[in-house]
Every structure is written in structure tokens, then in C-alpha cells.
């Protein structure tokens, strides 16, 4: 998948949830990705985050790191 777009979309999701408390934001981001992203998209963004995740919003990075495949 298009990595730039995935990163952008993940950051947009993170920015929305960033308005709330951090623990809720992390749970909200993870829940959103599980509900709406295909397993392959989640896997690719996880791999990217594990590889450094340049450009990924800090909240998104932490939420993605906790995603269970």
C-alpha cells in the first residue's frame, strides 16, 4: 500500500484522538485501526513503525506498537 498515505491517514486519526486524554487516545487510535484498516494495512504500518516510523505522529506510533496482529 501507499506508505505516505497510510502515514498521513494514521496521523490524521491520531490528531483527532489527541484532543482527549492520552490513554483514551491510544485506545481510540488502536480501536479505529482495528475496525477500519485491513490486516495487511495494519501489518505494513506496524512494520514501518518498528523500522523507525519516520513521520508518524507520536500517539499513532505508540498505539500502532500495541496493535495485536
Amino acid at each position, binding site marked *: 500500500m501507499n506508505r505516505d498515505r497510510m502515514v498521513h491517514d494514521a496521523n*490524521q*486519526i491520531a490528531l*483527532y484522538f489527541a484532543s482527549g486524554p492520552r490513554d483514551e487516545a491510544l485506545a481510540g487510535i488502536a480501536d*479505529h485501526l482495528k*475496525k477500519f*484498516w485491513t490486516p495487511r494495512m495494519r501489518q505494513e504500518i506496524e512494520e514501518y513503525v518498528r523500522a523507525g516510523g519516520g513521520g508518524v505522529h507520536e500517539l499513532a506510533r505508540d498505539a500502532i506498537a500495541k496493535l495485536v496482529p
Partner: protein
Amino acid sequence: MISLQIDGKPVSVPEGTKILQAAAAAGVKIPKLCATDSLQPFGSCRLCLVEIEGRRGTPASCTTPVEDGMRVTTQSTKLAKLRRGTMELYISDHPLDCLTCAANGDCELQDMAGAVGLREVRYGYAGANHLKAAKDESNPYFTFDASKCIVCSRCVRACEEVQGTFALTIDGRGFASKVSAGNKSFLESECVSCGACVQACPTATLMEKSIIDHGQPEHSVITTCAYCGVGCTFEAEMQGNEVVRMTPYDDGKANHGHSCVKGRFAWGYATHKERVLKPMIRAKTSDPWREVNWEEAIAYTAREFRRIQAQYGRDSIGGITSSRCTNEETYLVQKVIRAAFGNNNTDTCARVCHSPTGYGLKTAFGTSAGTQDFDSVDDADVIVVIGANPTDAHPVFASQMKRRLRAGAKLIVIDPRRIDLVKSAHICADYHLALRPGTNVAIINALAHVVVTEGLVDEAYVTERCEAAAFEQWRRFVAEERNSPEAVAAITGVPAAEIRGAARLYATGGNAAIYYGLGVTEHSQGSTMVMGMANLAMATGNIGKRGVGINPLRGQNNVQGSCDMGSFPHEFPGYRHVSEDATRAAFEKAWGVPLQAEPGLRIPNMFDAALDGSFKGIYVQGEDIAQSDPNLQHVSAALSAMECVVVQDLFLNETAGFAHVFLPGCSFLEKDGTFTNAERRLGRVRKAMPPKNGLADWEITMALSNAMGYPMHYAHPSEIMDEIARLTPTFAGISYEKLDRLGSVQWPCNDDAPGGTPVMHVGGFARGKGRFTITGFIPTDERTTARFPLILTTGRILSQYNVGAQTRRTANVVWHEEDLLEIHPLDAENRGIKDGDLVAVASREGETSLRAQVSERMQPGVVYTTFHYPSSGANVVTTEFSDWATNCPEYKVTAVQVRKTERVSEWQREWWGGHESRPHGA
């Protein structure tokens, strides 16, 4: 109740009823001409005269209210003489051409002549008359023959009372009085061609050209319009298998006998010469199309899809359902994808319009749908229209809304553009918050800030109905200074005092109802804005009763239905996530196959997957993604990368240019099914003629499924609805039998609500407690710069519909031959642009050219266009920024520069085959 006797028959009617209506209730027919059920009494024709015991004279029964104990006589020698005398006067100035008149057999004047026993006209026909009055044939759909006019004012009153346009008037006095469209031809006038005047005319004065051409219909079929999300009920009036007129149905619960120019008149596309009726295939898109029979087309498609899956994996194909097709057809497409393709790669065109509505309202209330029925607006005291243009896009509901506004409801419009509702005949918005595109969330937070900080929260409602902790969190958030009207004024461009005034009106003005459109959803914060509106409505207690609510105005006829039917990749029918084990188990048991528990690809994901080589085949039913989706270069590249693109449509649309299989679809006139309108109302679509292509769309999908080895055996769409009802709790009580019996039904319809649910969340929310969410304003990434200093926003107009595939193939083009770029005079002057100039519109994504329309509707810095013609290329310039939650494209905000140009853009020249100007219809 008032009790009286009419011709000796006792009858009881509500107070205020007029004698004419009471007589009808008693089964007594009183001759009449100027009176009709759809209009207020007028009392001008002098035919409905009656005698009332104990009273002098012969009052008009249409205007005289009933009284207790009244004894009314409708037939007497005296009355008969008076009526005959009146008819003699009418007929002395009326052409005696009944046998050749288009209204022959459907003329109330003719009927009344018979009813009153007219046998002679003592005055003769040689006196002064109007028989040579000119006939106005300017309107493409109806004529105005003044020689046949009896000046009953029905048309004038219909234009005022029913449509609310006030385009017609009676000019002159006495014998010289005549119906006038503002002393212009109908085409040049303010007439919106809704047909209300034609419907109301008792003679052939206003007459459909189709009836003049064909004669009177011999049977009719009641069905549902296939244009916008109002979902008007129509009678398709037929001669054999040919439609000769579409007449709005009086008992239609969404339209109450009204219509717009599209549904009433623009149905000719169904028989347009460009319609494709034979299946076609080609191995490569550079090959010519080859006509084949249905068996070969279906077998080829199935073979290709299976080949692709064998080569690239199960998830390498998918499909797109259509908001123009029926619920049953949509259900089948997502079923064939989930069950026969074996994946969840199903999506729908709601992705690009109202997907944020689904997300936002489900989050706040627990159901992905609007809260009210249309009639609820009759009880609204404050109407808020946000990012919608109802008079153009939902005209029949707009007429109902305007009636309520003329009766005194207050109006707040939140829109960058000065839409007609801001100021039109007898309507003036109390507030027009002309915000900058992309700042909706800042405005809604500021409105909420005023409500919270000025003590306008309905505390009792919130305490009883909403989650306490989430509300307190939200209350603290919106009370922050950054959300104050003063703080956001610089962001939105709206003065703080106007925001404060609008907020106070919304919170304190009585029942307050929000109506919104794509100006809310098609933003990077579309879902946030939907939740922001829900927050505001809950905080003020404006959910759960008549006259209030959050009401999405759906763009296409079946957007609601296509979403309901499980078109999204993450949801089964009824908005249940594919990961819910019990739901999935129910579908697996019913469908007999294992189903994926993970979401599939959304449309933009499909494009990306196509470009990375993992998505190779797509089944597109009734959707033109190569015109309607953003950044068309990206869409084109994705479609070009696929190995089997299957398009099922009426016409060779833009997407068909990338297709390997074309399966001809059929129009709504040719099939059975249901549409669900914006108020969750399921209306029957009934077959008025056999499919011209040989198969209804649901039969095509079923054939494809069978060919792919997943058998389906439906004999009729009613069986598909029965399956939907069995598997979907909110539809459990719906059947064709019930729809036929009740006319239409609003879901939820089940044991708890066997007759359906006009207003949702009464007494409690679908999710239990209403949920407030934090809606921080996050500016879009699409920014204006010195290079791209203007914001382009998009919309649609009355006479055209979406990508124009239907309306461009009708006479509606006389009102809109091309898409124009509206630009404020200041911006135009700064660029040396005059009205009608060709201008180049350039964004970071691409460039197109349009004719300029200099207009003060726009605010400086904002330009606007429609997207009804493919060669306009609105989506050549739009970006791929999208709603954070749903990927709904941000069509409403594109940074552009506009300059005067002498040449059309390169891609347009190529599109037009080397021509510098647009060929007709392109």
C-alpha cells in the same frame, strides 16, 4: 367535531373544515374549478356555491367553514342555474377543440360542463375573447396555452403554496387579467419547472408536452423516484410499456404530491439512444468492444475474477455497490463479494459523500441515520441549514421547509456561499454564518461554547439522556477560550457577535432542527463535524421528539439504503461490524460459507492496492468512480493497473473507458425493489416496463454469483428483502406485503415498532446514553498560499444531478449547458476576469478550464463549481485529502489559482478529441 347535514346526510368533521371538504367526506360531490385538495381555498370560480338553511345568498362552499347544526343544500334549481350561467361565461371564452385537445379525458372544465348540464352558450363566441392568445412553448417539458386559461389562479397558488417560488402572478384586472411568469417566457422566468402549476391546472392551459405528443395514459404504476434522497413517490403513467408522464403521488409520505424538475420531467434518459443494451467484453481496454450474449459476458467475468484470485490471492478483487440501485441489488452485491469473492472488499459511493454521517451519528447516538422524518420540520421553530443547498439539491423537501419558514420558523444558514435560502421570496435568514471552507468544526465548537458558557445547556435532558463523564469532559473542552466565538472569528471569518446570536437562537428559540449536507461531510474533519452537531443537539435537548434532530440530506436516492445494506467493508447489513462473532455466525449460517472477520478495502485503499499490484479486479455497479472520485489522475492510474474492470451501468460512463466487461444495467422504471430515503423511509420501486437490457440488475448479480460457484436462487426481489429482514434486526418487520399495505415504512421496523419509526431516540438513544465526544478543530492540510490563494468548493444545481449521467441526457441541459466557476467580483476584477470568460483553475493536483460566472453569492477568496459534466474536470483539481475517520474526500476545500485563459487545458483538449470547445453533452 362539528356535526352538520349536507343534502340531508349527517356528517361530523373537525372544526375549521370547509363545507366542500365536509361534503366530500359525506360522499357528496360539489362542482368546483378553482378548488383543489393541494391548495388553500380561494373562492373565485363561483361553481361550488351552496345554499345554507337560514342564510341568505349562495356562499362558496370551498371557503365557508362548517358550523354545528348547519343544513347545506348542494343541488337545487337555483344553484343549477347559477352554475350553468357561470359555465356559459367560461366556455364563451374557451376554444371548443375538446376532441383535439391534449386534456381530452382529463379536463376539469370539460367535467364541470358535464356536471352542470351545460347545453348552450347564450352569449355566443363572437365577443371579446382570449382565443388568439399566444402559446408559450419555451419550457422543454410543458406548454402554457393562455387561450385555454380560465384564470382560476390554481397555478399561481401552487407556485406560492406548494413550491414556494412565487414565479407566477396574475397580471391585469377583470377581463385583462392573465397568468404571467413575471412578463417573461416560462423558460426565462424564475420558474423552477417543478410541475406544481401543471399539476394544478384544471384545463390544458399548462400541459405536459409528453401528453400532447402521446395522449392520455391508460394505466399507471406507483414507484419511487431515482434522483435525490428525498425519495418522492410518483405515478409512472403509461401507455403500454412507454412512460408518458411521471406524476407526483398525493399519498407519497416524503413528497405529499409535490415534485421537482428532475423527478417530474427528466426521465427521458431511460430511453436515450446512448443507452447500452447488450453486454460487451474486451481483453484489453485498447481493443474495441465486442457485443456478446449474457451467458458469455457472465461466464467471462466469472472466469476472469477466479483467474485473478488464483493468481494474486483471494483479496485481489472487490466491488462497489451503488446508491442509485435498490436495497435488494445493493445487498446482493455485498453478498456476492463477501460470500462468493470470499472477502470484505466491498464499498459504496457513500464513501465519497455521507460516510462521516454513518460514523458520527453511530458514535453519538448508536445509529447511522438521521433522526427525523421530513414532516418533523413542520414543528421546528429554528431551522439550521449547514453545508447544504436544499432548494437545488433536495428541492421537494426545501419546499416543505420554506412553508415552515414562511409560517414563522427562524433560519440559521451556515455556508460559505449565499445559497438561495439566505434570501428568497418571503424568506430571509436570521443569521447567515458565511464561514471559510474548512472551518466547520471551529464554528460548531464556538456555538457550543456559547451554549455552555451562557448557561443554555438543557441540564435535565443531559443528565437523564447522556453519559455523564463524557459530557463533563466535553463541557470543559468547549468552554475553553480557544473555542469562543471571539477566538474562532479570525479562523472562520464570521464575526463573534453573529456566532453568539445564532447560538442563543438555536438554544432558546424552541424546537431546533439541524439539516446538513455534503458541506459538512466532505471535509478532513467531516466525521468530527457530524459529532459536533450531535453534541450541540444533545446539549440543548434537541434530539428525540418532533421538530428537532440531526438530519442528513442524502445526495442520491439510496445512499441511506446502500449504507444500511452492508456496503461498507467493515459492516454487515444493519451496521454490525464484521468482527462481531454472533452477527457473523448468523450470516455464515444463512449464507452457508465462512466469512472474513476483518474489514476489507475502502475505495481509496482499492486504488492504492491496484497501484501496488495486489488488487486486480473490480465489479462496479452503478457508480462512475472515474468521474466522481477525487484526483482523477490517481483513479485513472489505478483502474488502468487492473486486469478486469467490470462496469454495470446504463451508459458507457467514464469508468467504462477502463473496463474490460460492460454489463448493461436497467433503469428504476424497469425493476422491482426498494429505495430508502434520507428519513429512513423504504419506498417500493415497481417495475413499469420490462428491462430493456433483458435482465434486472439483481438478476445480473445473481448470475455472476452462480457463475462463480456460489449459487443464488431468488425468484423475485421480495425474497431478497425477506432475507434482509431475517438477518437484520432493524428491518425485521419489513416485507413487500407491509410496504404495499402501508405505502412506505421507516426503519427501525420490528416487533418494537411494527409500523416503523418516524422519529428516533424518543425516550432514549439507540446506544443507551448519548455520547458527547471531544471535537478539537484541526485545520485541513490543504492550505492556501501565494501560489494557490483561493479555495475551490463544489456543489450541485437544481436541474442537474451528480455526475450528470442521467440529467445530461435530458432536456434539463437547457438550464445548465456547462459547469461554471462562480467567482466573487473582487477576485474576478483582480484577475481581469469578466463574466463568461474562459478561466484556468489550477490546484496542486491538476488544472482545468471553465467559464467564469462573476457572482456575489461567493465571498472573496472562495470560488465554486459544479461537477455535472465530465469534461469540466472538477475532480482533476480536487485533492486526495479526506476525512480522518472514513476517508470521505475533502471535495469542499481545494486551494487553487484562477487566471484568464484563451485555451482549454491540455487534458480537456485531449478529452474533446482535439477540439477547443466542448462538444454537445460532453
